[in-house]
């Protein structure tokens, strides 16, 4: 399924915590690790996953990177969910229309 990377990224509690913290405002790796019970390398690793999933982006500020929520990160996941159900329900409606048409001679 598409968007699996984003959904997988959301499956980890540390990564969700990072997203919570970034929802307040953009932060550096050091800032994040000072607010969490995990090391800077661990934070960096999680950020890499989040960035790979399109949920987080970064900008360089001098010697450090500042991380922020990607504006359309979760919109993608949401859109994917909506389109999944729309696709499924449309498929169901087509199936019902096909099934009920069979054996009926509908006047045209």
């Amino acid at each position, binding site marked *: 399924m598409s968007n699996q990377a984003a959904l997988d990224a959301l499956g980890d509690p540390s990564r969700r915590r990072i997203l919570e913290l970034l*929802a307040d405002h953009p932060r550096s790796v050091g800032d994040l690790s000072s607010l969490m019970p995990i090391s800077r390398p661990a934070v960096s690793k999680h950020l890499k996953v989040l960035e790979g999933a399109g949920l987080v982006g970064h900008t360089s500020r001098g010697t450090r990177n500042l991380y922020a929520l990607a504006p359309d990160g979760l919109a993608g996941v949401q859109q994917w969910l909506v389109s999944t159900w729309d696709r499924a*329900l449309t498929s169901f*409606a087509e199936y019902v229309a096909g099934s009920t048409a069979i054996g009926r001679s509908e006047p045209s």
Partner: protein
Amino acid sequence: MTHQATPVVAALQREVRVPCDLDTAFRLFTSHIGAWWPLATHGVLGEAASVAFEGDRLVERLGTEVAVWGEVLEHDPPYGFRMTWHPGHGPERATEVSVAFAPDGDDATVVTLTHTGWERLATPEATRENYAGGWTYVLGQFAAGVVRPSV
């Protein structure tokens, strides 16, 4: 510290109107799910797989491979059912899907699907302090603007 009430996250809701009576709609949706579910694009095991309710579980199979998509929690034919939803994951990652069927005139039924439980993905540990702010916001974005447009 214990959690405050779990933040309520907007449910994702979609509906569709189908040209048949209530009983038929419920039967086709559940017993015939393998005939209409778009497995090619929306399955775990691919196009060649099959999917069906087996007792209380919704199961996708391909040869010896098995993917359990969820477990039925409430079954109220022909008005609806409610189930856990975790295709591609174990039950610990479950959200919840409910499907309601309501007659719309004599020959049509409106099927409303509601997908909830995002807060379960958001609150894995009951020990976390200072929780309420950020993720609620994030999930608010996540679920915003998806209130029942018809298909």
